[in-house]
């Protein structure tokens, strides 16, 4: 019985191939573009998070509780060497890097500009952040009184690797402190924000400028062995570092890079909006097709009922026709969508948007798409739901037909 119904529904769908084909196309194109968009957004987001974390945010950071700026915490951790020891004990922590962050004036003979300076232990920082990989001229930090600067800083200061730079900042006691350092290397990430404003120097030099002790720093960046363990390690550390008693706080990359989280949220809502619009259009397409075929075939349905078909069976027939359209569309749309994603996964797509984002972060100019299974699953569910809902209206209508009247319908 059911099999016969499904077969009959298929035959009805195939009766008008042009109309069914067009409806099918709307489902296929809708789903394909949705798969593509979802993958694009999610790949973009994943790339963005990965890069932001590898350049600066890291997985976790330990900062003073009183600091309000998570990027450049204004209150240093003092007497904080013990934290490093404690961090080494945790099995899931790969390594940590102590950072001294401050804003300073970098001056060369030709010019001077304001910069953000990150004082680091070069060897640790090299493993925790990707900045060493972007060095274009010269070399990474390998001795005291050295600095690495961005390409745009170098251009604005008219300075080359090996030359002298004076870093000036306000020290703890309020005096203007200056220190001359040599440019070890010049890095180029392609990101304006980094290349035009961030410099790296030795932590000890930074502490000397600021008048800080050896065990004072703004932040400790932590890299985990497994990025999925962030929340659980955070909980462990909150306990083992006695954060409330010691006036500390532990921030995840989401806290430090909150703008990234906001960009993600914005993109996600846009994505949902697009999805809703696409499915409304698809639903109207299917509904239109179904209603037209219903009105065309009123006499046919009357005949079926006169021959003993129950109202429920006729309604199910219409639902099955709608389901045929929906499921075929689902199959083709899904295949096309996955095909496009796989294609751009290997080939990579040039991305003007990447350049826009790279204003804030180092970003590749091509994006390699990956599957966003969670979102794809939602899209698939929506196709099924829409094709059923769109079939439901004509199905309900058909149950209201009276066999005798329907037979005489012109």
């Amino acid at each position, binding site marked *: 019985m059911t099999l016969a119904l499904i077969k009959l529904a298929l035959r009805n769908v195939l009766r008008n191939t042009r109309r069914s084909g067009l409806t099918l196309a709307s489902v296929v194109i809708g789903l394909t573009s949705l798969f593509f968009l979802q993958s694009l957004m999610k790949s973009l987001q994943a790339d963005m998070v990965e890069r932001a974390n590898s350049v600066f945010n890291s997985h976790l950071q330990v900062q003073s509780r009183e600091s309000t700026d998570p990027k450049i915490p204004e209150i240093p951790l003092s007497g904080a060497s013990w934290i490093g020891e404690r961090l080494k004990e945790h099995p899931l922590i790969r390594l940590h890097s102590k950072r001294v962050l401050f804003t300073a004036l970098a*001056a060369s*003979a*030709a010019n001077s500009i*304001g910069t953000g300076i990150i004082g680091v232990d070069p060897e640790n920082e090299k493993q925790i952040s990707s900045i060493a990989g972007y060095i274009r001229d010269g070399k990474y930090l390998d001795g005291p009184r050295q600095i690495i600067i961005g390409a745009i800083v170098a251009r604005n200061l*008219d300075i080359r690797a090996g030359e*002298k730079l004076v870093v*000036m900042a306000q020290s703890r006691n309020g*005096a*203007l402190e200056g*220190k001359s350092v040599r440019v070890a290397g010049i890095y180029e990430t392609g990101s304006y924000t980094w290349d035009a404003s961030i410099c790296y120097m030795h932590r000890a030099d930074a502490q000397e400028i600021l008048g800080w002790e050896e065990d004072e720093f703004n932040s400790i960046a932590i890299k985990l062995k497994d990025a999925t363990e962030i929340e659980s390690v955070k909980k462990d550390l909150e306990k083992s570092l006695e954060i409330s008693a010691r006036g500390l706080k532990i921030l995840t990359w989401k806290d430090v890079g909150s703008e990234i989280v906001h960009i993600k949220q914005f993109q996600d809502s846009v994505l949902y909006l697009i999805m809703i619009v696409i499915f409304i259009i698809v639903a109207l397409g299917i509904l239109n097709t179904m209603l037209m075929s219903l009105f065309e075939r009123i006499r046919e349905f009357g005949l079926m009922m006169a021959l003993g078909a129950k109202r429920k069976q006729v309604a199910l027939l219409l639902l099955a026709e709608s389901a045929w359209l929906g499921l075929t569309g689902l199959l083709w749309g899904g295949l096309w969508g996955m095909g496009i994603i796989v294609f751009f996964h290997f080939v990579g797509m040039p991305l003007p948007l990447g350049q826009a984002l790279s204003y804030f972060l180092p970003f590749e100019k091509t994006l390699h798409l990956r599957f966003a299974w969670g979102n794809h699953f939602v899209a698939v569910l929506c196709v099924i739901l829409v094709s059923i809902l769109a079939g439901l209206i004509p199905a309900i209508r058909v149950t209201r037909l009276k066999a005798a009247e329907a037979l005489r319908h012109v």
Partner: protein
Amino acid sequence: MLRHGFFIVVFAALNAHGLDLSPQEIVSKGQELLRGSKSSRARTTLTIVRPKFQRRLEVESLHQGQDKSFLAVHSPPEEANSRTLRLKQDVWTYTRKTEHPIKIPYSMMHTSWMGSDFTYEDIVKLDSLVTQYSHKILEQKKDPQGRSDILIRLELIPFEEAPVVWGKVLWSAVLKSDGSEVIPVQEEDYSERGDLIRRITLENIKLMDGKRIPTVLTCEMMGKKAGSKTVLEYKSIDFDLEFDAKTFTLQTLQRGLK
């Protein structure tokens, strides 16, 4: 005869070494000249020349010791009552528009003062040429222009760790052979690469308040900023005055000089 020759040699050596002053003392004395050893008060005009326009300010400047300065602009009218106070390393400005003293943050120390080619740091760090550099005499000869007895040219190389931006400074002055007078005549600032970045020329030596001083000071930018210069001309200067205790305070900055 031998004795005589010996004296000639010793005398020549002394002369070549440069009088009773060390090169460092010469620079120190030269830098001190326009500020006065104790204090000074001067009326100047400041002409700022840019490739596309030119501006003239009347500025009154007061200095006391090494670390107190006060600058007040008297004209043009739209900039009158702009004032700058420096106490040691801190600099505040006041303009009529803000009606409140603003402390210049360290990040702006290298920005220009009143749109000129002088920076706030030039106002603050007057003694760095003395303390942050090693001094070597390049040349010493009779002053061809007759401004004083000797023209001396020094090469100043910053100490490796000195927080100064220049790679080399060439500094010249004319001085009396007994060292009683040192008048700086030129300062040339070079980058480490050896490019001339800025040249300060001091000319037109006149007698003012009992001292001979260069009355026209020209600061010329080279390289990328070529075509820009600032000319500071002294109209009058008085040395070693006693200033009121309130002169170098934020209060005076806000209210203006009497």
